[in-house]
């Protein structure tokens, strides 16, 4: 391209026009760089605020903040997000146990059995649409079918998150199944293995690292969800290790509740909880990256 510019500028008639055009092109490139900066700035600002305000709260008298119960009176200063951390882990963990096996199984159908048929095309299309269902609608759906009948519990939240994760896991798994070379399947069939056994012992193990990393990204996203939990989990302040009974709580619910409080102590706890949540999702994402890097290096 540079050579081209030199050749063109050697001709006097065109050079004036050319310079105006290249100024325009350079300006637009500058605007593109500016947009990259505009994307980076809020991320930096948010991370700065979380660490700036959260570290002092969360690590003061370590590990009090991560273990103690939440003060039941909002204006009282002092630590405690332990029940929320346990709640987030329980809700997200149970959601993962529901959504990942079902999602993988669904993707197996789409890619191994129903290739090209109308049903699988419809499911694939609707799965993409389903990723766009607002999370608060999912929360109200679970409220109507679960919470109304069984009351607040961590499991209700898990159901809502599982519904949100399902289409994401299906999509990620199908991408990974596409990468499994066909000759693996053919070699297995040639040994007289049935189709289901081939899928379970050859195809899925080959795609496993990718499925794990894709699922972990869905888990990280789900761990930060708030809206679907509001109607199903409740907002307890004490530890509740029972998955199916009684109101529970989660980090995201605590951040939402404390963010609009006028008490500085509550706002501090919100920042501490935000730091904890971000660290948690960061760890999950990091594990996912390690798995992704491993498959990348194996190929």
């Amino acid at each position, binding site marked *: 391209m540079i050579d081209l510019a030199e050749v063109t500028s050697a001709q006097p008639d065109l050079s004036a026009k050319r310079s105006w055009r290249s100024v325009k092109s350079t300006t637009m490139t500058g605007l593109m760089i500016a947009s990259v900066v505009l994307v980076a700035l809020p991320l930096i600002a948010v991370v700065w605020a979380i660490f700036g305000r959260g570290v002092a709260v969360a690590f003061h008298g370590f590990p009090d903040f991560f273990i103690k119960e939440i003060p039941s009176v909002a204006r009282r200063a002092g630590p405690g997000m332990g029940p929320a951390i346990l709640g987030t882990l329980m809700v997200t963990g149970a959601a993962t146990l529901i959504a990942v096996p079902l999602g993988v199984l669904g993707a197996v159908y789409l890619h191994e059995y129903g290739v090209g048929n109308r049903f699988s095309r419809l499911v694939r299309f609707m799965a993409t*649409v389903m990723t766009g269902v607002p999370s608060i609608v999912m929360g109200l759906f679970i409220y109507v079918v679960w919470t109304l009948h069984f009351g607040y519990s961590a499991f209700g939240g898990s159901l809502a998150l599982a519904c949100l994760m399902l289409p994401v896991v299906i999509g990620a798994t199908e991408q990974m199944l596409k990468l499994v070379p066909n000759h693996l399947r053919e070699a297995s069939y040639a040994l007289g293995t049935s189709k289901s056994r081939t899928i379970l012992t050859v195809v899925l193990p080959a795609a496993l690292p990718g499925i794990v990393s894709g699922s972990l990204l869905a888990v990280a996203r789900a761990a930060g969800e708030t809206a679907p939990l509001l109607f199903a989990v409740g907002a307890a302040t004490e530890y509740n290790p029972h998955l199916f009974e009684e109101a529970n709580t989660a980090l995201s619910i605590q951040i939402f509740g404390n963010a609009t409080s006028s008490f500085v102590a509550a706002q501090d706890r919100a920042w501490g909880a935000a730091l904890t949540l971000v660290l948690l999702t960061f760890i999950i994402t990091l594990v996912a990256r390690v798995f992704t890097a491993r498959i990348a290096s194996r190929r």
Partner: protein
Amino acid sequence: MHDLRGHRAYADGAFRWAAAGAAALVLLILGLIFITITSRSLPVFHQMGLSFFTTSRWSPADALFGALAFIWGTAFTALIALAIAVPISLGMALFMTQVAPPVIKKPLVYLTDLLAGVPSVVFGLWGVLVLSQHFGLGRSFLTAGIILAIMIVPIITSLSREVIETTPPGDKEGALALGATRWEMIGAAVLPHSAGGLVGAVMLGLGRAMGETIAAALVIGSALGQLTLSPLAPGNSMPAVIANEWGEADALHKSALIALAVTLFVITIIVNLAATAIVQRSMRKGQGS
């Protein structure tokens, strides 16, 4: 003929049906969502009729539920978010695909992934305690629009990037060989080729912005009955109302909030259906050429 595989064939069929069932779950859940929440919203429609959509007086104490202001607020914040996010996302996607060398491109992918990974409640917390207080914006449509813009930039950027990358290299090289500058090449080859897909990407961003709850609930200001064009006015959107009022709602009020969710669900499903169809068609076109 005697089937030598016997019970193994039976197990094979069972597995196939289990897999098909799991796939069908997607359709089942979507259908159930619509049926269950619609049935729960009926009481408020018995009370209000269609004036639920056409009036904007929302007064739970008087059993009056007019959602027009919230529908407008949802559209207004989403449009502000798009106005901010679309140029930035397009600029970033073009930079990543047309300008940046691979060394820079990879960290930029991480950057958008990281931004997508920040929980929305954390953006909301930052919006309510930092952005609205220290930048003089207050809690308003504009503040909500800015926060929503930050949150939809990753999805619009990554989809636009995928669409733009399907531009045939021949088209781009042809434009450059005719003496086009980089920007002229983008205008002549990249944008016409990707236009459909880009529209789809923007619509998916619109769907996300309309459905985003928690961040909007925290920064939008929770004003009732505001039918205003002023971005600096405090307002409300459908998901924000649901999240903020659910706690103290009685039966009819809950029904009204669920009716808001039905409205939101129908609108976002329509937007997402159209967007997904557009994106998938444009991707197929890209692969075909």
